[in-house]
């Protein structure tokens, strides 16, 4: 187990390192950063001055090590546009995005896993058909459109929920549903397929032959095995939600990382963009690592060799 954890940690570290290199090189993707910073009317001296004062004249590996060293200490530089510490800006925006993505994945899982299990217990039954319909509709509806429809009915017509901002917890309900429902079909279909397969397996027959209660057979013996691929999928989807909440955060005017990313792209604020990509990637890596750990806990074939 320790060996497995160390291996996964090593992989996570290497991925993080690679991501940091790629995000660092973002600065140079759109051309000379000093020219971009100086503006259109700048003279050559001004550009040189900026290049020197920002350290862009040093060799790129040196700049990277310098940037990485400061990033490791929590210093992600200053935003050219906001004139603020990037770390500070990100820290104030991050909680909203984390809460939103957390609620969204929780909503998606609590809806899709029980529905997938129920559909697998009685294939082709009414509940299976309902689940299938939901999956098709869910996959086909773009989340921004679904969000607008919800806003219109629940927010404007019925006035049940606030249509924007998250000053109260109610504000999170609609965005979480809008963000989470898109994940529901995939997770549900995977749960259903996994359960169907596991319920046919020999060890389920053994469990029944032992006279175990149907619920024990279903949850202890079947779901534990069927859920393993679902964990991996849910982790990937959770990562997408962190980054993909750009659309939902913009629609509901939630001051989160996604909204910040959208603003930043519009302003061409490269260091900020760099930091957002880095932070989101690190979260993605963290989630994947945690999912690997959870799977190792669920499946001894991973953990015990």
């Amino acid at each position: 187990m320790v060996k497995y954890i160390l291996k996964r940690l090593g992989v996570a570290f290497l991925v993080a390192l690679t991501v940091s290199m790629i995000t660092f090189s973002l600065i140079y993707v759109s051309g000379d950063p000093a020219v971009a910073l100086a503006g259109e009317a700048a003279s050559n001296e001004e550009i040189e001055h900026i290049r020197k004062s920002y350290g862009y004249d040093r060799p790129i590996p040196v700049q990277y090590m310098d940037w990485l060293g400061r990033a490791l200490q929590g210093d992600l530089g200053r935003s050219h546009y906001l004139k603020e510490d990037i770390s500070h800006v990100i820290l104030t925006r991050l909680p909203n995005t984390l809460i939103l993505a957390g609620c969204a994945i929780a909503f998606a899982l609590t809806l899709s896993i029980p529905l997938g299990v129920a559909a697998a217990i009685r294939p082709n039954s009414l509940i299976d058909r309902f689940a299938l319909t939901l999956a098709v509709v869910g996959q086909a509806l773009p989340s921004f459109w679904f969000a607008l429809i919800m806003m219109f009915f629940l927010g404007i017509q019925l006035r049940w929920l606030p249509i924007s901002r998250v000053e109260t917890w109610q504000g999170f309900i609609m965005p979480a549903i809008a963000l989470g429902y898109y994940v529901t079909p995939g997770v549900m279909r995977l749960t259903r397929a996994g359960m169907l397969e596991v319920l046919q397996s020999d060890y389920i027959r053994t469990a029944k032959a032992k006279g175990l209660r149907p619920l024990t057979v279903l949850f202890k013996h079947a779901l534990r095995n069927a859920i393993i691929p679902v964990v991996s999928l849910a982790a990937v989807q959770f990562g997408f939600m962190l980054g993909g909440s750009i659309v939902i955060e913009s629609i509901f005017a939630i001051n989160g990382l996604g909204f910040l990313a959208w603003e930043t792209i519009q302003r061409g604020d490269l260091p900020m963009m760099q930091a957002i990509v880095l932070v989101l990637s690190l979260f993605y890596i963290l989630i994947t690592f945690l999912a690997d750990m959870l799977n190792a806990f669920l499946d001894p074939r991973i953990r015990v060799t």
Partner: protein
Amino acid sequence: MSDTILEVQDLVVDIPVSAGMLHPVQSISFKVDKGETLCIVGESGCGKSLTSLAVMNLLPKSANCTATKLSLDGEDLQSTSERRMSDIRGNKMSMIFQEPMTSLNPAYTIGNQLTEALLRHKKVSQSEARDRAIYLLEKVGITAAASRLTQYPHQLSGGLRQRVMIAMALMCGPEMIIADEPTTALDVTIQAQILHLLADLQKEFNMGMILITHDLGVVSRVADRVAVMYAGQIVETGTGKQVFENPTHPYTQGLLECIPIPGKTERGAHLGSIPGIVPSLVGDLPGCHFADRCRHVMDTCRTGTIDLSPSFEDGHVYRCVQTPEQCAANLKKGAA
């Protein structure tokens, strides 16, 4: 009568399939006494496994199962609720399956899966259940039993897994045990060990046992009674001695010709084989099911229903239009 543990009369299993109605088990009757081993022998697809699943009430939902009598220790299993049935399964009657590689749950330790049945059926503590598991693992010939409890199925070989399955089936001290081809998936060298182990345990714990197997060599040694199944029917049944010494039905005769006998079968001699394939059991099949493959087939074999009729001795019955004497003569002719 009182020592009969399992009694099955006219067990019928029907499964609707796209081509019509499949009749994999057609009016099977047998009984098993305490401490007795019934061996069910037959080719793949003859309905052996479905018979055992029907007794355990573990048939797939699509299958219809009826019987005029299906009772365990005097209790009618047909009218019992599924709840009561689950109290019986793994407790008074347990089953060992043919696929040890996939019959254990990969997610739980051997110890967890062993104690689970006992904790479900009996009022025992965790540590008592653990002690029982260790005792039985030692009984089935597993060394370092205590340390095995924390291992997972994937850490064990097929032979060990099947031993674990046997120990699991014995956890609650069942009166009846059904072993469905317990050695099919195992190495040849392990097969005999496992079958002998089962036979020994069955004697030691005085259980009734149904052993479903292809291994006629083992059958001849462990069987008190033998039922030969062909295409959904029992074609011959009797004590092991009766069936092996006076095989009456042409199919039984054919099966016995397929095994070499040390000292009797000459080196280089051809072993027997039965030509043809098992008939489809979709729809009604008139006459003798074995007719198409039988060397001694006659016109009368193809019509009506052929019932089990008594052979030479009491308790030995067979399903053929010819008299026992004719059948015995056929066997001599074949051997000559």
